[in-house]
C-alpha cells in the first residue's frame, strides 16, 4: 500500500511517499512526483515513512533526478531515519547514492 501527499510550503513542494514503494505502486509514485514538479522551483521528496523499498521504486528516484535535471528543478530527498537503510540498499545494488539536485539558476 502507498499513500502520497503533496503540500506546498515556503515556495517548495513537498511530496510525501508513505508505505510501500513496490512495483505495484510505481505508476502512483511516478504520477505523484511528476505532479509535484509541475511549476515548482524545488521539490522535497519525503521518504521518512517509507516501509518497503523495492528496486522498481528505487529506480523511480533516479528517474526523478533525471527529470529534475532536465527541468532545472531542485530536488531534495529527505529520508530521515530511513537514510541509512536507503544508503545500504544503494550500496548493495552497487548504485550511486541518491543525491539532491540543485535548482538551476536561470530564472
Amino acid at each position, binding site marked *: 500500500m502507498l499513500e502520497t501527499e503533496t503540500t506546498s510550503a515556503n515556495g517548495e513542494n513537498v511530496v510525501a511517499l508513505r508505505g510501500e514503494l513496490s*512495483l505495484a505502486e*510505481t*505508476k502512483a*509514485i*511516478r504520477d505523484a*512526483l*511528476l505532479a509535484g*514538479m509541475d511549476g515548482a522551483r524545488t521539490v522535497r521528496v519525503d521518504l521518512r515513512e517509507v516501509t518497503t523499498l*523495492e*528496486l*522498481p521504486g528505487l*529506480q*523511480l528516484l*533516479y*528517474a*526523478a533526478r*533525471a*527529470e529534475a*535535471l*532536465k527541468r532545472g528543478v531542485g530536488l531534495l530527498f529527505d529520508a530521515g531515519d530511513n537514510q541509512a537503510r536507503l544508503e545500504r540498499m544503494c550500496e*548493495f*545494488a*552497487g*548504485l*550511486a547514492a541518491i543525491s539532491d539536485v540543485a535548482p538551476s539558476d536561470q530564472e
Partner: protein
Amino acid sequence: MSLSTDPLETFREEAKELLVTLEESLMALEEEPQDHELIDTAFRALHTIKGSGNMFDLDRLVAFAHTVETVFAALRDGSLELDRRLTDLSLTAKDHLADLLALGDGSDPEIEQRDRELSSRFTAYLPEGGAASAESGGSAEADVGEATAHDGPGAGVADDELKDEAKDSTYRVILKPSLETFRIGGNPLLLISELQELGQTLVMGFVADVPPLSEIDPEGCYLHWDILVTTAAGEDAVRDVFLFVDGEIDIRVVDEGGFFDTDINYKRLGEILVDRGEIKPEDLEHAIGSKDYLGDVLIRSGYVTQEQVQSALSEQNYVRKMRETRRQTESSSTIKVQTEKLDELVNLVGEFVSLHANIAMLAEQKGDQDVRSAAEQMEGLIRQVRDLSIDLHMVPVDLLFSGFRRLVRDLCADLGKDVHLELEGTETELDKNVVDALKDPLLHLIRNSIDHGIETPEERSAAGKERAGRLKLSAYYAGAHVVIEIDDDGAGLNAERIRAKAVDRGLISAELELSESEIQGLIFEPGFSTAENATNVSGRGVGMDVVKRNIENLGGSIRVRSQQGVGTNMKIRIPLTLAIVEGLLARIGDGMYLINLAYIVECLELADVVDDSGDQIIDFRGEIVPYLDLRRFFRLEASENGGGQVVVVAIDDRKVGLVVDGILDKYQSVIKSLGKVYERAQGVSGAIILGDGRPALMLDVDRLARVTREELR
C-alpha cells in the same frame, strides 16, 4: 477418491482413475475413431501417469507409458490413424499399465515379458522404431533414461565439487535485465544476494539508462550491472545463479586462480573497456594518441560514459586487490629476505669453498695427515652449506614466465596477432640471478617470435593452420643445467633468405656449403638481422647476437631449430647457478684452466685413442670424435711433456675432445667475471683464484666445441 497422506498411495489412486478415463476414451474411440478430443483425453491421461510416475521413480511404468504416449502423440498430430487393431492393443496396454502400477518396483517375470512384447508392438507403429517424439513440438528424447534424469537447476553441482580444486577465480558478470524483468517477477537484487553467497563480490550498478520520470515506463527495468565475483565454486556455479535471467547475460573469467601471477597489475583501462565490448579497439587507439588521461579523453569523445570508466577502474582495482590477497596467503608460511643478503651469503659460501680448496691443497703439499683429514670432513659440511645457500637462492621459473603473459597479450593487441601462450615446467627452479639475467633475452626472443614468427590470423587461415598461433615456454632440468625452450608454430626461418643475407653482409662466402641448421645458426652472428622491415616491437638496435652473448655470459648456450612453415624452436641451456662452478682443473702450458664438470664425459690418455691418419680425431669407444689441441689454440709454447690428456666433453650429445697437458684435480670455485681485458678472449669465459693465489681461467667449452667442429670441416 480417498486421500492418503502418502503421496505414492495418492498417486496409485490417481493413476487408477486416469486409467479408467483412458479406458472410457478408448471405448468411445471405437465408435468414433476420428474424435480429436477423445484422443487428446487419452493422451493427457498417459502423459500425467508418466509425469507423476517419474516423481516416484516408477521407471518401468514411466517407460511403458511413454511408449504408448508417443503413439498417441502421433495420432493427435494426424501422422497416424487409429484403427481397430490399435484400439485393441491400447486396451491391452491399459490393463498392462494397471499391472505395472500394482507391481511398483517389485519384480514379476511374466509382466516383464509382456512389457517387452507390448512395447515392441507399439514401437512398430512409429517411424524408425520409435524415434518420434511424444511431444508435438519437436524431437524430445524417446529414451526414458533421459527423461528420468534430474536435469533441473543445480544439476551437475556435485560434479563441480568433485573436480573443483578450490582455487579462487574472479568472474565478470555483465547483467542487462530485459525491460520486462520486474513485470515477470524477476528481481536482480536476489541474483546479487545469491552471488554474494558464492564469495566476494564487487557490484557496479548503472543508472545512466534510467529515463526521466516523464518518459519512463514505471514498471520497466532500466538498470544494469557489472558484477565481479571471486569464488572457488567454479564457473558453472556462477552461471547457475543467472539461470532464469530474462535479458542479456555475459559471464567470463577475468582472473584465473591457481597460478602464481607475478604481475600484480591487471589489465589497462582501455583493455577492460574493449573487453567488455564498450568501446571499439580502433576508437581506443584513436584516443590513446592523446596526451590527456585516457578515461577523460574517452568520456569527452563520447565513446563511453563516466559510469563505464568508473566501473572499469573499479574492476582494475578489485582484481589487483584480489591478487595481492592471494599472494599474501600464498606466502604466509615464508619469510621475506632481501635478495642482496642472499647474494652475500652465496658469495661468502663461495669464498669459503675457495678457502677450503686452498687448505686442502696446502695439507696435500705439506703431507700433514691430520690437517688433511680435517679438511676432508670440512668438505662434507661445506658442500651442505653450499647446497643450502644455493637452494635459498632458487626461485621457480614461473616468476619469469608468467610475467610474459602480459607481454604476449599486449604484443598481440599491437600487432594484430592471436597467440595462445602455454607455459610448461613453471615449477623448475633457477638461481634468482639467472632468472633476472634471462629476462631480457627471453623478452627479445618472445617478441621476435610473435613479431616475425607467428603469422596473422588471416595468413594462418590461408596456410591451413589454426587462426590462433601457439607459443610455448617450457623449462626442465638437464643435469646441472636448466633448459628453457621457446617454441612457436609460426612461419619458421627462411633458410634461403638467411643465406642470401649472410652472403650479402659478408658473413659467409657465396660458395660455402652449409647444412640447414648451420644456416639457421647464422642468425646469431653479429650484424645479422632477419627482419626485412624492423618494426617498433622487435626494434632494430638489439640483434640476436646480443641475445646469444647475454646467454653465454651466463655460462649458457642457445640453439635454434626451425622448419619453414611449421615453426621455430629456441633452446637455451643455462647452468642452475652462476655462483659456484664445479670443474676439473687442467694445465695447459704454464697456465691453469678450469673445465666445467657439467660438460665432461671422460678424461683419457690421448695416445691411447688418437687416430693415426693425421686428422684431428680420436676413437672414443668406436665413435669418431674431433679434438682440439688447446695449446695450439691458445698459441702457447710447446712444452716437452705436453698434450698428453684429452678431455671428452659433450654439448647436446655432440662430443669433442679438448687436449690439455695434464689434469690436476676437481675444483669448486666462485667465478669472477673477466673484466675488460679478457672480454674478447676467445675460448675463456671467466677467471678464478686458486688456493695458492694463482689465477686460473674458465674454459668456454661451448665455444671451443664449436671451433673444434669448424676446424674439422
